[in-house]
């Protein structure tokens, strides 16, 4: 029970205050993760009253402010829930399953030579915008926690869609698709619930899920 919570507080500041109070009482503070606290790093992530990140849609835990909670004063704060995310301690979960997706193909690994002239490789403005929209994923894992199937298609699809559109990413397109699709076995299947897009702080669209299958099917038909 916190008596001195104010509307300006963010969810994490509320936890900070709760921890201060616990320490004053000589008790152990509650462990939770955060870093930037401005919605860019993806380190934060708790479940509030059953919803990953909290009641405000498409907003990371660190940007969830009490003033936007619409009168909810009783908060049940849990870790992000998924079989792929074992709880480390209190509100901290192990999200290395996401790292395995990135290691498999969420990067570009080609010999790019020395820095080329700026206009050597032209990328259309529209393509650049779409690629950047998919690149907005901060890797928080809320999509997996929101999914009734525990799927990571939104996350993986964002990487695949982003990198498949850019010149350096294209070089490894087939290999990347195979590797990433294989790592998805660790998660569940997508049934188009659409719960992920409700919580995603980057506002990724469900099109990212289609990108997983587009890239996967393309890799199958490519052979070798």
């Amino acid at each position, binding site marked *: 029970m916190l008596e001195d919570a104010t509307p300006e507080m963010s969810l994490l500041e509320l936890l900070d205050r709760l921890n201060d109070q616990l320490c004053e009482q000589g008790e152990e503070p509650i462990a939770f993760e955060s870093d930037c606290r401005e919605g860019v790093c993806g380190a934060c992530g708790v479940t509030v009253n*059953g919803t990953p990140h909290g009641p405000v849609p498409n907003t990371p835990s660190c940007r969830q402010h009490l003033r936007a909670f619409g009168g909810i004063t009783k908060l049940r704060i849990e870790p992000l*829930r*998924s*079989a*792929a995310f074992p709880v480390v301690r209190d509100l901290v979960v192990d999200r290395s399953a996401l790292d395995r997706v990135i290691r498999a193909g969420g990067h570009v690994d080609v010999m790019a030579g020395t820095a080329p002239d700026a206009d050597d490789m032209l990328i259309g403005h529209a393509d650049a915008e779409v690629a950047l929209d998919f690149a907005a994923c901060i890797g928080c894992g809320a999509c997996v926690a*929101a*999914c*009734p*199937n*525990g*799927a990571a298609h939104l996350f993986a699809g964002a990487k695949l*869609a982003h990198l498949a559109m850019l010149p350096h990413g294209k070089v490894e397109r087939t290999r990347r698709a195979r590797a990433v699709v294989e790592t998805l076995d660790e*998660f*569940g*299947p*997508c*049934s*188009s*619930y*659409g*719960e992920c897009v*409700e919580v995603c702080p980057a506002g990724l669209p*469900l*099109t990212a*899920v*289609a*990108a*997983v*299958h*587009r*890239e*996967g*099917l*393309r890799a199958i038909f490519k052979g070798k």
Partner: protein
Amino acid sequence: MAVTGLLFVGFVVVHLFGNLKVFAGADAFDHYAAWLREVGYPLLPKQSVLWALRIVLGLSVLAHIGAAVTLWWRARKARGRHRRRLGGAESQLAGFMLPGGLVIALFILFHLSDLTIGGPGASASFRHPDPNVHAYANLVASFSRPLVACFYSASMLLLAAHIFHGWRTLLQDFGATGARLRRVWVILGGLIALAVVAGNASIPLLVLAGVIS
């Protein structure tokens, strides 16, 4: 899942066109039913196309249900011990695919027994082709039973919901990322679902109302 689902949608739409012949009268409907038994003749033996369709659809139903159970099991394992509250309408529909699909499976069994096989659940006056088909009379006799008519209509509502969400899922499974295609596809799915309820479910209700007799 996606391939068999698409096949079923194709089948349901063709089946719907066949059913609508009810509105053209008993002769047109029975004539169509008789034609179904000999499509391809004389090139192919009578009933061969009918049986080929039955076998393909039967195997597809088994594959579709098998895939549904596999996906359900994988999802259960991946989710862990925690239940999710479902949010919007789309999410509710997704959650309803398996229960709704299982009711559709029961409906298919009943429907075959009622109007094809004349087994348990068929009306007292059911008649096999002898060789004149009696499809129209069988249908009217069956749907004159209020409980059966309501079950048919309600099943069509479930089927429409299944098709609406399944159709949308096809976009994902076939990897369609184009924005315009995705918009048009969803609208098309809505129209198909609407046609299935409006066209099919109206028949038992109109029999009950005495309009079709």
